[in-house]
């Protein structure tokens, strides 16, 4: 199926199920991307996974994102990439939220694979996944007190004194 047709097909199914204006379709390169409202995400992914004609039963990946210059309501985002192996269709679901409310329902009941992916999104961006069985840092040390992949944290630790410019040819 052509990407735009596939996107439209999924969009139509979602509109029929959840109503008008619940998702916005965009085509990014060879991917249909659906931008959906936050409260719907879990039910929508459940629908995409279990609906017989859609059957997106494989969670390829999931990640967080931070757009510091975006509108405050759209500052943080999560992306879910799903795959249907039988028809070889792929789709991305995006959801945006403000910094003040980084709560999201955990997808672990749908895909156990979401367990570590959500721990990573928590570790690096500070998303809180309700219903997650073991939401703790995965790659950084437990007593770290910030979420390092947010854009406000600089590349180098400003508190270090051993990294003088002259030693690094700067």
């Amino acid at each position, binding site marked *: 199926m052509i990407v735009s047709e596939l996107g439209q097909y999924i969009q139509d199914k979602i509109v029929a199920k959840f109503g008008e204006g619940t998702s916005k379709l965009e085509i990014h390169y060879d991917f249909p991307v659906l931008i959906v409202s936050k409260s719907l995400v879990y039910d929508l992914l459940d629908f995409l996974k279990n609906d017989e004609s859609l059957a997106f039963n*494989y*969670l390829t990946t999931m990640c967080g994102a931070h757009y510091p210059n975006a509108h405050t309501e759209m500052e943080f985002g999560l992306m879910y990439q799903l795959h249907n192996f039988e028809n070889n269709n792929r789709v991305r679901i995006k959801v945006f939220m403000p910094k003040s409310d980084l709560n999201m329902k955990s997808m672990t009941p749908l895909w156990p694979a979401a367990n570590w992916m959500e721990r990573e999104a928590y570790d690096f961006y500070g998303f809180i996944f309700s219903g997650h069985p073991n939401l703790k840092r995965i790659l950084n040390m437990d007593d770290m007190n910030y979420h390092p992949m947010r854009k406000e944290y600089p590349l180098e630790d400003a508190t270090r004194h051993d990294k003088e410019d002259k030693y690094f040819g700067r």
Partner: protein
Amino acid sequence: MDIKQSEILEAAEKNFSVLNLGPTHPATHGIFQNILKMDGEIVMEAESTIGYIHRAFEKIAERRPYNQITTLTDRLNYCSSPINNMAWHMTVEKLINAEIPKRAQYLRVIIMELARIADHIICDTVIAVDTGAATGYFHLFQYREMIYEIYEEVCGARLTTNIGRIGGLERDFSPKAWEKLRKFMSTFPAALKEFDKLVTRNRIFMDRTIGVGCVSKEMAMKYSFSGPNMRAAGIDYDVRAMNPYSSYEDFEFDIPVGLAEL
């Protein structure tokens, strides 16, 4: 870590033992910690800590131009750096909508397939070493060396290759590179066959691997397995065939898929 004192006591009562494997252990091939709940030699549960070698490539990449990020991708999996390099090039090419000459695409396929072979040589021989058969490892590593010499001829580097450029390749293959490639292709199949005879049907190897840590198709789907692990679990998906990139659609190839039923 998360296994508490009470759980250790409970485990002791049930004759389970708790073993701290790692962060550094010769069998983990990398730094990560596992706290294992063991029933004799059988692992019942494991609590893994995988963060010891996180290097924040995403953060470093934030402040670099695209062509300086390629060197970071070398280090994602240094057993097959060229494939990571190509994945990065192709991502940027998609972003800037660049079209790659057919010859460059084919040369990339050759390099990627060499890298795939080199990586599989490491995985397959090292599992043999871990289960007690070192001979095959030394034998096949000669051929990995031949692949590294081909890389060297193409890009000047061996392990962290930084091979290719956004938009194509840095240079065409030299006559010397083709010569080495031909030599590799004419000698490797026989060596692989020999390794297969030496290890795959070896009684010790079979006893130590068959039925150990099995993954069913359903489990592989639920836990988002990918690549060879997914195919070993019996799912016949290969991205090169299903969503071809870099002109893979022009090539004919067989894909091995696991057949065992659990």
